[in-house]
């Protein structure tokens, strides 16, 4: 191609060098690092190229006067890697900063916990042998010296979060944690000054260490899924052909488009932005927008939407902003309403904290009062009450849910489900009704040849290879059948009609019936498009239509078998939905729905006490995705739909939806199990503490024992999910 891509929006300049970050596709082995880095460094002007293998991102730095940004992308393409520049999201760099802070806090807490434990073990063994009081005090003071600064640093994430919660008059898990840590440290300091036998510095710091482990893992997992999601978005990013001031066409990334820009949309391309047609006429496939599979005719003055596929003619369009009475406006309006109506979901851990925090604090207070009433000294009563707080300090409780969540989102990640929302797993587990959109969700996003088996393999191969030379969507659907991906040489495309080429000495044609000079073709069904291939007297009519995802029938059957109510709500005509619903065995289906109708259907289900999982991909599904209890989108979905989905799934199969539901249900079961384990632990430990028998040794053993137990239990989420044939 002679056109060059203008990538200047992605280039940052600093100190005389230009810098660009790219997401790279297809990096899979050690050799790739060297190939990419060495390959780029050979370019004149490139100063540095470094590939981050963990998140598949490449940072390139070069002298801007010697090299264009697009040359970097072209060079990568030549080496064999598809790359797309992206702008690092602010949210992502914020997360990286938080992760680093958490890791530092974890290191400090780990260092302190180890050293204090070393001193504590000496004190414990000294207490049962011949340790002098001076030595014990010395060890306690040393522990305080390590514990106080360490807790002040490593405890910050908890103190801050607790303070935020308290300021809004709420309770979260961090409130009892912070209180427990602070009281344990304060009491130990007082006891040390009074030359007492017991100090709880080790418990306080070890608690912080365990909790930071859970919190860091949770954060690292979220960061990883976010990086992958960012890469996918960057690699999907498309380019637009924009007319510059002089009327010339320049290729620019979609990110650089502004309202008012004039764009050229050629046949076979997707419309890069919402806008109005200035000139030209064409058939537009809006299946990604409305779910309708039949192309719509557009002419000058017509409105077209991002993601529609241009079938036949070249269009010139003007990019518009929302607020002009279009479908986008209606969707935006509905989205706003749906998002504000959605009640804030109360996570399981928060619900546990609401129950737990008052319970613990009351128990501690009652212990204090109880001991005072039966005549114990004030000092002893306070010590026992604080011991209750320390021993119930929710080590197990605060680890129980995050660990399951980390392991479950890791398992989902491996089966191709990327979670957007932190509480998606809990909400997925609660779903009892699944609503599927039809076009692009149950069916593949791109149409396929339906009757490929009806033709001789070599005829199909020839037709498919000829189709490689055409940009027409029907030809591209046929081209997917080609085994050998080399186009036939000398193929000529007649715009709007078809392609022809010489094969084995005679002319082959692929295109419309008129172009191929074929008359006796049976009239196709309403939702089937056909493309004709003729060669040496033979003729083939390929039927092309939206096809179900290969495993859709099996997945829907599994979902029905696991007790879920499966329904289909489609924007497509009822006549197109009916046969598909019959094949899937779904009785509850509706066709021809507008975005508002989909929301109404969901609201009705919600009013009946149902929890709805909405799976959809179109622009018209976005409000429904936001209104549902929980939602998923395929990766091919419209941008606005993806941003409102709680999870995105990859690939051409539907099975990730089933896996998401089963993994989430198992995860919820384990969360509940872990909570019960924590309850049992407390039921045993608290009476011991109330009775005043807790020594630092018992506290340390109980705390680490229960933490390890719930963590091991959480690992069971990884059990291999059932696969669907």
């Amino acid at each position, binding site marked *: 191609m002679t056109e060059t891509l203008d990538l200047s929006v992605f280039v940052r300049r600093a100190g005389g060098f230009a810098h660009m970050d790219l997401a790279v596709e297809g990096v899979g082995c*050690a050799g790739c*690092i060297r190939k990419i880095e060495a390959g780029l460094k050979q370019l004149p002007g490139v100063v540095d190229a470094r590939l*981050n*293998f963990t998140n598949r991102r490449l940072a390139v730095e070069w002298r801007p006067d010697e090299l264009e940004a697009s040359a970097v992308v072209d060079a990568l393409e030549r080496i064999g890697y598809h790359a797309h520049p992206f702008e690092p999201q602010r949210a992502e760099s914020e997360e990286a900063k938080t992760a*680093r802070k958490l*890791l530092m806090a974890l290191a400090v807490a780990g*260092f302190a916990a180890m050293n204090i434990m070393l001193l504590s073990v000496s004190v414990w063994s000294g207490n049962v042998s011949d340790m002098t009081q001076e*030595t014990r005090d010395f060890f306690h003071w040393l522990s305080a010296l390590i514990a106080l600064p360490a807790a002040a640093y490593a405890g910050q994430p908890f103190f801050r979060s607790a303070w935020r919660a308290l300021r809004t008059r709420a309770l979260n898990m961090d409130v009892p944690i912070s209180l427990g840590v602070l009281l344990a440290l304060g009491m130990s300091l007082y006891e040390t000054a009074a030359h007492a036998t017991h100090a709880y510095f080790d418990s306080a710091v070890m608690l912080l260490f365990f909790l930071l482990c859970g919190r860091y893992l949770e954060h690292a997992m979220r960061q990883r899924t976010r990086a992958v999601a960012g890469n996918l978005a960057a690699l999907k990013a498309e380019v637009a052909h924009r007319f510059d001031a002089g009327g010339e066409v320049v290729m620019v990334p979609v990110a650089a488009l502004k309202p008012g820009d004039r764009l050229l949309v050629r046949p076979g391309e997707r419309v890069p932005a919402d806008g109005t047609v200035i000139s030209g006429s064409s058939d537009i496939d809006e299946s990604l927008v409305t779910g309708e599979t039949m192309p719509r005719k557009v002419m000058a003055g017509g409105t077209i939407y991002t993601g529609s596929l241009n079938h036949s003619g070249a269009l010139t369009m003007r990019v518009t902003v929302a607020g002009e009475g279009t479908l986008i406006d209606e969707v935006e309006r509905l989205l706003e309403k749906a998002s504000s109506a959605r009640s804030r979901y109360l996570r399981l851990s928060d619900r546990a904290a609401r129950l737990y925090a008052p319970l613990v604090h009351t128990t501690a207070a009652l212990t204090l009062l109880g001991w005072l009433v039966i005549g114990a000294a004030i000092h002893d009563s306070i010590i026992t009450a604080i011991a209750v707080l320390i021993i119930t300090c929710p080590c197990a409780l605060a680890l129980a849910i995050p660990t399951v969540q980390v392991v479950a989102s890791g398992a989902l990640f491996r089966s191709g489900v990327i979670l957007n929302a932190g509480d998606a797993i809990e909400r997925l587990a609660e779903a009892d009704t699944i609503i599927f959109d039809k076009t692009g969700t149950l069916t593949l996003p791109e149409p396929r040849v339906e009757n490929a088996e009806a033709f001789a393999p070599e005829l199909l191969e020839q037709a498919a290879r000829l189709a490689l030379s055409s940009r027409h969507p029907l030809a591209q659907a046929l081209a997917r059948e080609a085994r050998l991906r080399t186009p036939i040489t000398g193929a000529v495309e007649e715009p709007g009609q078809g392609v022809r080429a010489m094969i084995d000495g005679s002319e082959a044609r692929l295109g419309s019936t008129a172009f191929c000079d074929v008359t006796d073709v049976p009239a196709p069904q309403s939702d089937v498009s056909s493309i004709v291939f003729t060669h040496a007297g033979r003729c083939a009519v390929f039927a092309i239509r939206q096809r179900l995802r290969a495993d859709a029938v099996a997945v829907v059957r599994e979902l029905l078998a696991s007790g879920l109510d499966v329904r289909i709500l489609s924007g497509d005509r009822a006549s197109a939905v009916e046969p598909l619903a019959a094949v899937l065995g779904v009785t509850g289906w509706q066709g021809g729905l507008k975005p508002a109708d989909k929301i109404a259907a969901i609201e009705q289900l919600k009013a009946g006490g149902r929890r709805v999982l909405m799976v959809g991909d179109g622009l018209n599904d976005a409000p429904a995705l936001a209104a549902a209890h929980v939602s998923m989108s395929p990766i091919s979905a419209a941008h606005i739909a993806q941003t409102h989905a709680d999870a995105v799934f990859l690939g051409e199969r539907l099975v990730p939806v089933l896996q998401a539901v089963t993994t989430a249900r198992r995860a919820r079961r384990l969360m509940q199990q872990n909570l019960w384990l924590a309850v049992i632990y407390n039921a045993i430990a608290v009476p011991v503490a109330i009775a005043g028998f807790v020594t630092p040794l018992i506290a340390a053993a109980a705390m680490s024992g229960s933490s390890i137990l719930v963590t091991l239990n959480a690992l069971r989420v990884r059990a291999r999910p059932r696969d669907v044939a």
Partner: protein
Amino acid sequence: MNVLVYLVPMALLLGLTGLAAFMWSLSSGQYDDVEGAALRILDNDDIEVL
């Protein structure tokens, strides 16, 4: 017990050195690409092939 006077500060100092080393490695970006580091070591490009 007099050995504690210099053994304890020494032990703490050693521990702090380890902590400082970790902090340094973290802030110099050594954990940014853990998988890549494992693979880069296999790369022989600094050795002349005879």
